[in-house]
Each structure stands twice: as structure tokens, then as C-alpha cells.
């Protein structure tokens, strides 16, 4: 039995068809439609940022020419229609023909090495630019050829002011351009690969020369029998520097300046992981982004550079809804490929995960009810007041299918404590049953707190249903797949054992928490121990607050004043560095500029696995007020 959930999203890169079959078009439209319509997507430098797993590589991959032409080849296939539509909205396809030829250059290896050379900064950058350009050219040609276009059917259209420079890139014919690029690539590669870098004076001319194809090329022209029916088609070359955070910060700056030049005619995107910058700067980027342009989120256009932040798009609630849709969609595609469930048409993740709550046992309910009675007695609450509070609980859930007795009791206990608090100091000498200072209501917060109380006191299943699964994935497709895999495996096991193909709440709850704990246990990235220490301390504090009898707060975040957070990189670089990796590896989500009680906060929200493992709410917004100093001391304290 093969469970495709065990494969990671990015691993569907193997071939274009497999890749396209799992791509969801929503984020594409969400992020790129607007800049495409405004014409900024292909005419200036576009800077993308996203946390790992946020789909940035998938996005880049879609614009590679081979993927694009696979979409076009398969028009009529329903699977691709939505993707094709999205690409059309993003201006990559027009009238059924591609408009761009994209290539993705992963910056992970080789490029950073240039910075280590014992040469002047200008020469080092020059070598880097030369290398990028040679490789981009080769990649464009590779993609075109992979799409069935012969080298001889490809030619270069130079910029009108650069026709005379055509010679420097080998000419305008495909073959010559490729040959030149190959020579240059090899020459630079040999320099990079040498155990000890050659003397500056020994560098071959090929690497220090005037090879600048990005400044020469305007369009790439092709004729293709299959694609264009023999007509000539001009494509905008698009170079995508993926994972550019591997570059040295100075190199990154140099690349940014180089590619931001308006005279360039090729399209150029730079994609980085969130931690591109040194810790402080990296965090600052997210912080800035949040305030800008709510109308098309994630986009901050300066004159020369478009910035797109991939994870934090839109209102967080909107984001959640959209992610749920995308995740369910993705799950369906994966389930279709599942060797056991696919053929049985068990492909809707929602129908595999029961939404039916699992109340606590009769015995526990009795115990709870005794406890509530004891609370009533201890807090000196009259029976009539209790009836009133019960009515409030009842009223709160009107229209609902009704709430189970255990939650009702837990809510009642919370209201009792609130009542007691709000009557404190009132002269009980005169009154047996004082009125609270503020009226009591059983709002969703009380409901949520009651469920958490039952979770922590009685292990009442709290995490279940497809929405919880999606929410616990922190808007991260890869995490979603990892969490889903164990659930899907279990459904399959039940099917083998001739049991129903649906998981009850307690099974889901248990499996999700188990998997989450395993994910956290297996953390292994820079500073992971410190990250673990920090988040464990924060999560523990959140649990302590969540189980307070009056249920006043169910936090899953830690708040630091924005001003304090902004200066973290300088005031406490070590903390900033730890946070950087916590964010980069999805332990923590940063929610900057969060207004609460007249102050501006930056929230460190616990990632999905932490909420699952520690039993924190998946509802957003509740946070513990804290400070940067406190974070620093959490990192210093020795465990136990």
C-alpha cells in the first residue's frame, strides 16, 4: 500500500505532469495576479520571501518553461485547467501561448563561494554575475529544448541599444550563444571548484571579460511546430534566483542592485527564505510588511522593486480559510493516488475525519459534576444563581445542535469563578447572592476555555476534524502532509481490518498529538535546542494560563512590544538569532504590529505542532504579555 502523503510536496518535482497534478492555483492568483495586472511582475526585480514549505519553490517551478509548456500541452485536461487559468491571470500565458521562458537557479551551492575569494569586492561580484548569467542562459535553452524546440529554432533578440554587444555573448544564434555560455560557465566553475583560488592575475579572460547577456537580451525568439505552428514567438526571459538567502548579505545586496536596474529587459525574480537577512533585519521585514496595503496583501512596491511575502497574505482569517481550501484540495489529489483509498473513492479528507465530539466518560462526568458542586459550595454560590448561570450557558449555544453535558459543566464552572471574582468585595454580610460587577456572558472564549479545561483535566479530545488538521498546519503545505500522513495511514489500516473508513475524534486527537511530539523531538536545525527550550517554556506558560479556573485567557502566543522587538537584533543578537531559526523552521510564527489595549505588540505564535503537543488552542489572538528581556532569560535558564 503506497501512501503518497509520505512524499513531500516538493518531491513531486520529478516530472512536470506529476508536479502539476498536485499544484493548487490559489496562491498563484493570490500573490501574482495583482502585480501581473499592474505590469510589474516581469519588468522589474520582484523579491519573494517565505518560510520553508510556504510553496515558494513550487511557485518558481511553475514558471519554468518545461512546466508551462506541460500545462499548455495538456489543455483540455481538467486537472490543469485551473492552473492554466491562474497562469493566464499572471500573464505567463496569453492566447494559449507562453509569454515567458522561465528558469530557476537554486543559489544553494557554488554562488556563496565567490565571496571567499581573495579578490576585490567588485571582482567577486563580477564573477558571481557572470556565473548567474551563463547559467541562466543555459537553463533557458535547456528548458526550451526540453519542450521540443530545436537549438536552431531559437535566437536572441537584443535590446535596441545593445545590438553591437551581441558578439560578447556569442552572437544571436542559439548554438553560438549556448557554446559561449558553456565556456564561461566551465571557466568560472573551475575557479570556484579549485581547492585554492587562483591568483587574480591568473584568472582566465573568460571569467573577467565582458560577458553580460542580461544587459544585451531583450527577448528570446522561437519557432516551434507544436507550440506556435511554425510562427515566430517572442518570449520574455525570466530568471528566478531561488533560495537566494544562501548568498552572503553583501552579495545579496549586490545582486539586488544589479537586478533592480531599470534598463534590464529580462524579467527577474529573487526568492529567499524568510531568514535571508541577519536576524534583526529578517524579522523587520515581516514586521514592515504587515502594515502595508491591506488591499493586496504581501505586496510592498517601491519604485524599482516589488516585494512579495509569501506566507503572510491577507487577513489571517482569510488566509486560514484559503489554506483550508488549498489543503483539502491537495489532500484530495493525494488520496486519489493512494493505492488502497484511491480506488475506493475515499478521497475527501473531511469525510475520513469525524467532526463528532467525544465527550468524557460517565464516570468522569460524575466526577466533574461533583467538582462543580464543590466549587459552587466553596465559592458560596446559591442554587438560584447556579440556575441562572446554567441558563447563560444554555443561551450561549442556542441554535447549535446542542452542547454535551461535560462542556456545559465546564462552562458553568468557569462562569462560577468569574461570578465569584466579579462579586468580590461586595458586602456579602448583607447579601447572599450579590450581583456581579459586570454581567456574565458565555461567549466563545468561555466555550473554548471549557474545552481546553476538559482536555487538560480529562484528556477530552480537542483536536479533530479536517479544519483543525488544516489549522494545526500553520498554513504550511508540507506540515499538512506530514500531519495527514499518520491519519491517512490509520484510515487505511482500518479499511484493511474491515472497519469504517473514518477516524473518531479521540483517535485523531491522539494521533495528531503523537505526530506533533515526534516532529518536535526530531527537530534538528541550527540552535534547535535553544528553540526547543524557549518554546517549551512559552507553551508551558500558555497551558498554565489556559487552565486557570475562570478561563480568562486561552493563549497560544507570547507578546513583546513591537518597539522592543524591533531593536532585538541590536539589543540581544543571540535571542534574535534563535528566533530567526525558530521562525525559519516553523516552530514560531511571527505576528507583528498586533494592536491590543492601546499598545502595539509583536506576537510569537506557537506553531501547529507545539499547539498540538502542549494542548494549546488553535484559535488565534490570545497571548501572554511579555518582554524581550524575559525571552532572553528563558533562553539562559537551565532546564529544571
Amino acid at each position, binding site marked *: *500500500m503506497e501512501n503518497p502523503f509520505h512524499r513531500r510536496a516538493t518531491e513531486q518535482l520529478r516530472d512536470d505532469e506529476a508536479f502539476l497534478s498536485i499544484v493548487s492555483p490559489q496562491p498563484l492568483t493570490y500573490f501574482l495576479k495583482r502585480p501581473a495586472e499592474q505590469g510589474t511582475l516581469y519588468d522589474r526585480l520582484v523579491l519573494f520571501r517565505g518560510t520553508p514549505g510556504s510553496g515558494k519553490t513550487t511557485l518558481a517551478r511553475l514558471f519554468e518553461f518545461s512546466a508551462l509548456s506541460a500545462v499548455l500541452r495538456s489543455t483540455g485536461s481538467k486537472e490543469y485547467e485551473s492552473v492554466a487559468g491562474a497562469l493566464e491571470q499572471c500573464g505567463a500565458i496569453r492566447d494559449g501561448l507562453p509569454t515567458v521562458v522561465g528558469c530557476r537557479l537554486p543559489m544553494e551551492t557554488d554562488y556563496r563561494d565567490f565571496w571567499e575569494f581573495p579578490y576585490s569586492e567588485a571582482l567577486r561580484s563580477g564573477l558571481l554575475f557572470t556565473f548567474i548569467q551563463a547559467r541562466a542562459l543555459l537553463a533557458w535553452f535547456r528548458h526550451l529544448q526540453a519542450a521540443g524546440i530545436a537549438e536552431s529554432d531559437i535566437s536572441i533578440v537584443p535590446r535596441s541599444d545593445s545590438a553591437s554587444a551581441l558578439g560578447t555573448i556569442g552572437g544571436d544564434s542559439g548554438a553560438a550563444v549556448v557554446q559561449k555560455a558553456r565556456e564561461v560557465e566551465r571557466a568560472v566553475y573551475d575557479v570556484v571548484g579549485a581547492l585554492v583560488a587562483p591568483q587574480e592575475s591568473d584568472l582566465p579572460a573568460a571569467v573577467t571579460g565582458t560577458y553580460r547577456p542580461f544587459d544585451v537580451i531583450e527577448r528570446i525568439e522561437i519557432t516551434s511546430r507544436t507550440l506556435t505552428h511554425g510562427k515566430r514567438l517572442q518570449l520574455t526571459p525570466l530568471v528566478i534566483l531561488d533560495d537566494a538567502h544562501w548568498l552572503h548579505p553583501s552579495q545579496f545586496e549586490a545582486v539586488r542592485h544589479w537586478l533592480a536596474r531599470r534598463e534590464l529587459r529580462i524579467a527577474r525574480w529573487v526568492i529567499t527564505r524568510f531568514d535571508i537577512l541577519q536576524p534583526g533585519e529578517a524579522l523587520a521585514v515581516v514586521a514592515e510588511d504587515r502594515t502595508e496595503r491591506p488591499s493586496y496583501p504581501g505586496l510592498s512596491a517601491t519604485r524599482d522593486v516589488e516585494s512579495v511575502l509569501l506566507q503572510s497574505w491577507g487577513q489571517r482569517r482569510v488566509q486560514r480559510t484559503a489554506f483550508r481550501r488549498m489543503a483539502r484540495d491537495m489532500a484530495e489529489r493525494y488520496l486519489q493516488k493512494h*493505492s*488502497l483509498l484511491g480506488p475506493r473513492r475515499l478521497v475527501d479528507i473531511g469525510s475520513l475525519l469525524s467532526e463528532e465530539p467525544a465527550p468524557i466518560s460517565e464516570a468522569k462526568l460524575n466526577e466533574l459534576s461533583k467538582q462543580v458542586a464543590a466549587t459552587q459550595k466553596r465559592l458560596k454560590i446559591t442554587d438560584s444563581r447556579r440556575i441562572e448561570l446554567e441558563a447563560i450557558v444554555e443561551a450561549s449555544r442556542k441554535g447549535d445542535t446542542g452542547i454535551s453535558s461535560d462542556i456545559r459543566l465546564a462552562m458553568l464552572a468557569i462562569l462560577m469563578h468569574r461570578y465569584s471574582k466579579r462579586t468580590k468585595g461586595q458586602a456579602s454580610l448583607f447579601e447572599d447572592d450579590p450581583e456581579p460587577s459586570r454581567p456574565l456572558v458565555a461567549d466563545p472564549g468561555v466555550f473554548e476555555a471549557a474545552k481546553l479545561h476538559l482536555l487538560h483535566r480529562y484528556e477530552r479530545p480537542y483536536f479533530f476534524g479536517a479544519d483543525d488538521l488544516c489549522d494545526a498546519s500553520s498554513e504550511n503545505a508540507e506540515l499538512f502532509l506530514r500531519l495527514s500522513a*499518520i491519519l491517512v*495511514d*490509520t484510515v*487505511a*489500516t*482500518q479499511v*484493511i*481490518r*474491515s*472497519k469504517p473508513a473514518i477516524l473518531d475524534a479521540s*483517535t485523531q486527537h491522539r*494521533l495528531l498529538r503523537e505526530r506533533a511530539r515526534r516532529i518536535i523531538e526530531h527537530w534538528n536545525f541550527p540552535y534547535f535546542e535553544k528553540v526547543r527550550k524557549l518554546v517549551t517554556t512559552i507553551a508551558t506558560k500558555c497551558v498554565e494560563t489556559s487552565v486557570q479556573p475562570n478561563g480568562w485567557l486561552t493563549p497560544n502566543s507570547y507578546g513583546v512590544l513591537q518597539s522592543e522587538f524591533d531593536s532585538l537584533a541590536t539589543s540581544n543578537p543571540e535571542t534574535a538569532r534563535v528566533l530567526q531559526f525558530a521562525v525559519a523552521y516553523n516552530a514560531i510564527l511571527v505576528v507583528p504590529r498586533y494592536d491590543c489595549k492601546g499598545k502595539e505588540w509583536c506576537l510569537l505564535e506557537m506553531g501547529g505542532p507545539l499547539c498540538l503537543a502542549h494542548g494549546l488552542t488553535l484559535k488565534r489572538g490570545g497571548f501572554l504579555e511579555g518582554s524581550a528581556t524575559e525571552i532572553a532569560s528563558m533562553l539562559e535558564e537551565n532546564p529544571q
Partner: protein
Amino acid sequence: MKQDFILGKLAQLMSWDTDKARIEFGWLRLMSQMKYDGYQDFLAGARFVESLVDWLQQFTDAERVIAYDFVRSSLVYLSTAEMNHLVELFYPETVVWRLQEAVARKLSIPAWQVWSTPKARALFEQLRRQTLFIELSDGARIDVFRRVNAGLISNEQVVTSPRFNEEKWTDLLKDLRRDVNDPEARFAFVFLVDDFVGSGTTLLRKKDTEWTGKLRRFWDDMKDHRATYFEDDWSLCVHHYVATARAEQAVRETNALASSERGRDEWFHNVKFSFSAVLPPDLPLSATAHGPFLALTDKYYDDSIETRHTRVAGTDAKLGFGQCALPLVLEHNTPNNSIALLWADTDGDNGRHPMRPLFRRRQRHV
């Protein structure tokens, strides 16, 4: 998938809950595919998981847990790829070193200088040609050995029967003399090769007052032909791909004893033992580590297997031939030194327990 059906049966048999079933299904699928299904005696449609279900059925509910746990955490199964790898190791790791030492000795140079002069290299190559490889049983995988050493060892150096055959041996000598261009040439090294040695008794043991076993037989065969085929200071090397720790020690000791008892004229002068892999000393099942499972081997036993296999070693065969108590299965056959519960297949006549094998053993007559 077809396997899903039998897995469902297994879960039922083992009374697994869904969680346990999920985990075990994963493991069973993986290990059947990566290793166990390759067992040569499995039939189509009844591979590992099917055999496991059949095997477990002979136990009570509680015992099944013990038996399954044994398979899960103690069974050692060597796959075809693993066995073949041990064959691959034989020439470069053992033969080369033996010959290299001999060259060094003959030229009075340190062993590390053997590759530094054409003279030494030539001597090495000559000695290699003067080496014979003799298969002690069909488990020696001499075909694999030939294939991986093609170009280094010629077919005229490989003998597939341990018994002496004058016609064959005369040919071998003729080929050698032609190849090294020396009409007087004889063999300098003989490697006896076999797959597995568990107790060492098949190789050499003393029965009453008489030495017997494969080594003794080889001696008897060759004794009168030594001067014809072998150089005066020839070496006999005995190589096993797998050995138990006990056998590694035992074969050396027994050989030393045989040598001293029989005297210089009645035994080999230079005998060297080598192994591609030696199993750890704590591999045999012990009462302390595997008590509950050993109780099963005791309870589920049919002594009718004794007549056929274990008389030589004396006691019963519950723990396998020679009381080796091995949890070992080789992909082409389960050694009879492994615990009987793993391999024995009996009808259970006369009210005895009909033993069902997990890895059915094919008889290989020695």
C-alpha cells in the same frame, strides 16, 4: 493490494488495535519487500506474511505476542544481496592479504612493499594462479565468486566438488603449468569455501576416537597426492562467509587438536581459517534475554526431527543442531543450527506437536 487481505487476518490473529496494526503493517510491508520475501523456499502466494500467519497459528494468544516479538526484534535474516556481498569480500579482503603475506615472506620484504616492485607483483600474480578454490557445498556460491572475480581468477582454479577426482585434478595441474609456463609448477594455496559454519562439527570433529568431518575427508582424499599437486610448504585456507563466534574459536581449536593428535605426517601443516563475517557472541538466544521465547521452543517441539538431524550432537534439537540456539535465517536456507521452531516442519504423528516452519528448511545432505 493482495497483501492487505492477509495483513487483516494477521491483525485479527494478533488482536492488534488499529494503532498497533498501522505500525506493524508498515514494518511488515517494508521488511517483506526489502528482505523476507526473498526467501528461496517461499512459494508464490505464500510468502513471508502468509508463512508468519501460518506459523503464529500454532501458538496461544499470549504466545503469539512472544513469537511475533521474536521475529520483530531478534530474528537475523541475511538476504541474497547480503550473502553475495560476503562473497564479494572474500577475494580482496582475505585472499589478497594471504598471498601478499606469502610474497613478503618469500622475498623478505615488509608486506606493504609488495606492490612497489614489478618483481613482487609478478610473484603475487604467480601465487594467485597457484591458488585453488574448492567449494565445500553448494552454499559456497562459487558462481557468484567466479563472476565478481572474473579476470583475476580463472575457471581452471575453481573446483566445484570437494572430492578428489584424479582426471579433473590432472587437468587443473596441466592448466596451471601452461599458464605459468613452468612444467614443474604446483599449487601453493588451497581455499576450501563454504557459506556458513555454526558449530564447526561438520567441518571437523572427533567421533569416538576417530577424526571426521569435511576437513578429514579432504585430508584422506589428498594425502597421497600432496606431493603431486602441492608445493612443499603449501597452505590450506578454510573460508566461510558467515561464522558464529563459537565456531570461529572452535574450528581453530579443533584443528590444533587434530594436528597435535595425528602428528605431522597425518595432518595439514599450514591451516588458516577466515570468515567474511563473524556473528557476535551474544547472538544465540539465552534464557536471560529470550526466556519466554525459549519456553515456546520447548513446548512446541516434535522429537521426530531428531532422528534426521541431531544425533551427532547428542541432545535434542530444540535449539537446533549443536545446541547453537541461533535466531538466524539465510536467504537460501535456514541453518539447522537455528532453533527448530523456526524451520522444522513435521506431521505431528503419534500425538506430537505438528511443527510449522516460518522459514521452511530444505535438507542439504552433508
